[in-house]
């Protein structure tokens, strides 16, 4: 009898032991799945950044031709650069200067470049091969040469080394971003141009130089190699100015009201529910709002940074209100009570004591909100900011585009081989700006963090 009891006990222990081993195995498995999830998340971040960097970083350097150009007086037949005379009105001078500029634009700058390239290659190109020759350089470079001359007319008759951008296709060819073994019919460049490009590259006339055009030029349709981000950058800057000027004061004010002054009633509840919902409304809905109210009803201009700024302001307001309220809430009530206790009014308490203490948190929240606005694309498409704009906007009312929208436009360009890298470079610029804003926010939080 006692044996069977002992046996039962043994049996039970065995079962428990067995199940324990199984349970522990399950435990380990669960843990591994968790670790795998974390690793996947981190790996995805790394893959995303690595693939963007790998494509984008090379685009900061661009095939550039260094060659001697002879500013031939026979070609450049131009009056002397006008100078403002005493007693001449600004208007009259502008007119004279404009006429001179027109004259300068009519000069055949392309022929100077053609001659320079012929010299560099050491060949004499017949007129039917001119196409192949011109395919080497970005088509906008004749204007660059003109601007250089306008700046310094004393170049006339001299031979100067200038820096000219190679065309987008040459850049792609030299960097090996296109399969070199493709048959002629599928290559973007003619065999002659490809041969010349290789020769110039071997001789060091075409070099891979840092691309200033990416930062200094605006978007360009005719000359993709010189397309740059300057216009989009200014557009984004103007929009961010509008956002900062409007959404930070309004957001902080409404957060202060809701957190410190608002009575508990229906209206306050309504406002709170509203803010929570607005924070989760898809951004494109704000674009629809902008299109119908700001543009359709108020008649504000299409594609203007001011409208974009207004739309983004409405979009970031909830974020700023919510973070500001959280940071106001983290100020301990004892501080308010102390101020009220020595006779400060409610407004004085808030503005002299609570707000200054909450300032780091408010700043952090505002910066994060602005960073979010900087990267937003969808609502801007609906208010016409995807229009092609060839000038850097001078005021927030002029037509403009924005950095993320420029990325959208470039990724759709037909010249895939070239613009894939160019787009990635633009993304690096955008991410760089956003990450530095985020880093600033984190730094502020760390520096001023107070534990109560």
């Amino acid at each position: 009898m006692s044996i069977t009891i002992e046996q039962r006990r043994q049996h039970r222990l065995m079962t428990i032991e067995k199940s324990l081993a199984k349970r522990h195995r399950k435990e380990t498995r669960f843990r591994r799945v968790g670790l795998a999830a974390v690793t996947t998340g981190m790996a995805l971040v790394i893959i995303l950044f690595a693939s963007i960097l790998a494509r984008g970083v090379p685009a900061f350097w661009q095939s550039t031709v260094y060659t001697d150009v002879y500013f031939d007086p026979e070609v450049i037949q131009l009056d002397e650069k006008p100078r403002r005379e005493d007693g001449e009105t600004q208007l009259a001078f502008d007119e004279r200067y404009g006429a001179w500029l027109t004259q300068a634009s009519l000069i055949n700058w392309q022929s100077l470049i053609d001659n320079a390239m012929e010299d560099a290659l050491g060949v004499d190109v017949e007129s039917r091969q001119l196409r192949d020759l011109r395919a080497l350089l970005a088509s906008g470079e004749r204007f660059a040469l003109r601007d250089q001359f306008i700046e310094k007319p004393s170049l006339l008759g001299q031979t100067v080394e200038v820096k000219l951008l190679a065309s987008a296709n040459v850049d792609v060819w030299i960097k090996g971003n296109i399969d070199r073994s493709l048959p002629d019919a599928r290559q973007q460049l003619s065999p002659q141009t490809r041969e010349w490009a290789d020769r110039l590259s071997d001789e060091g006339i075409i070099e891979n130089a840092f691309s200033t055009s990416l930062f200094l030029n605006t978007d360009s349709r005719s000359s993709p190699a010189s397309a740059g981000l300057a216009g989009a950058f200014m557009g984004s800057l103007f929009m961010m100015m509008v956002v900062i000027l409007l959404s930070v004061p309004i957001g902080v004010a409404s957060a202060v009201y809701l957190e410190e002054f608002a009575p508990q009633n229906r209206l306050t509840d309504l406002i709170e529910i509203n803010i929570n919902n607005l924070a989760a409304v898809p951004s494109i809905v704000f674009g629809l709002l902008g299109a119908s109210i700001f543009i359709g009803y108020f008649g504000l201009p299409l594609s203007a940074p001011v409208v974009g700024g207004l739309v983004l302001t409405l979009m970031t307001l909830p974020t700023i209100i919510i973070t500001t309220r959280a940071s106001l809430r983290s100020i301990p009530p004892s501080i308010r009570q102390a101020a009220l206790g020595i006779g400060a009014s409610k407004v004085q308490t808030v503005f002299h004591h609570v707000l200054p203490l909450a300032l780091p948190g408010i700043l952090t929240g505002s910066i994060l909100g602005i960073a979010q606005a900087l990267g937003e694309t969808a609502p801007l498409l609906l208010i016409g900011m995807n229009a092609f704009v060839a000038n850097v906007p001078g005021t927030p009312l002029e037509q403009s585009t924005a950095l993320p929208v420029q990325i959208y436009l470039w990724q759709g360009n037909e010249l895939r081989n070239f613009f894939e890298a160019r787009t990635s470079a633009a993304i690096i610029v955008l991410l760089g700006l956003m990450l530095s804003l985020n880093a600033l926010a984190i730094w502020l939080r760390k520096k001023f963090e107070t534990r109560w």
Partner: protein
Amino acid sequence: MSNIALIATLLVIMALAYHLGLTRSRAVAAENDVRMHSRPGYYGVLVALWCGLPALVLFLLWSFLAPQLIEMLVTHQLPHELVASMSGRELETTLRRISVLAEGRGVAGGGSAQELAAANHMARLHTYENLSLVALMAVLVVAGLTYAKRHISPQWRARNQVERVITFALAACSAVAIFTTVGIVLSMLGEALKFFSFISPAEFFLGTTWNPRFNTAGSSAQGEFGLLPLLWGTMMVSAIALLVAIPIGLMTAIYMAEYAPRWLRNIAKPVIEVLAGIPTIVYGFFALIVIGPFLSSVGDVIGINIRTTSALTAGLVMGIMIIPFVSSLSDDIITQVPKSLRDGALGLGATKSETIRQVVLPAALPGIVGAFLLAASRAIGETMIVVLAAGNNPVLHGNPFEAVSTITVTIVNQLTGDMDFASPQSLVAFALGLTLFVITLGLNVIALVVVRKYRQQYE
């Protein structure tokens, strides 16, 4: 006087008024040898407010109403039979031409005699309007200043009045949120109703074909505007996104909250949160150049035809985007489960994973469901990823390897380019936007209610 100069002058006058109030209150205090009710600065601010605020309000009202009034007067002055013969749009164009002429610029075709007469009239009205505005503002400034200055006395409760104005201004700021919502609802309802005057709601909500035809105004050929293919595409992409984001996000949250050593948490948490800060256009581009080709070549290997831009590509990348969203929300909710529950389960001999699966997760379930709903609403409203990576193919089909189109993509497609608020081709964007707004709003409200209920349970 230009508006900017007017406002600048007003601000300068207000600054002077502040100074006046400040010195005046000090003088009053010295004269009567009493303590004033408030500190001198408040008297200064109050005088400045009395002097500037009424004029400012007048200015705002004026610049809102005056142009309409002038337009009305000018229209009135035009010959009646001319106005009667024009349609609303023609009248609008005429008025625009007149106002350009009134500014002294030329218009195409030079402008008829009637237009020139009207322009003259308008220019004259403008001058009157401007002069009377300046005069009225000056009157208000002087009146306010005299009133406030005369009232400076030890009994005048300046601080309380200033504070009332401040509180009112703060409340006005928080009303912006309400105006935004009202603006969204009204604008979308208005335009959507216009759309429904072309296409019946039944046709829109139950239609299975999406083929809006060309976006030309006044074309008699009407396309088919069926919502269902778009809704289906949206659901498919969002479902794939949630299938990616929920397991990874939830497991990440559990691991971070329960297992991860401190050093790992300190690294992994910010790294994964970087995903939340990346603009969606970047995800779209990533989908287009990395994930799409990758999936397509994987499909070649295993013998399935996967398009580069497909529901799968867009959904996968969208899933990556909402991982941090799911994980940080779930993390908050899991850490809110009281420690006593955990300790109880562990004390009974449960392993850690058993505690999590059988005690913590069921206790946190409502909150986690709320988090999933919020994630779903975000996925449904996401635009740029699907614009770039979903392929824009508004056809009802169940194949995730094929291209689809979504509500958001179609909004972008229909509203970019020519903006013409009269054709159903553009107006449909607002009907779609309204649908999207209602869906996401519904999900958010349910999620908030669920999460709030859950919070109360453990507070």
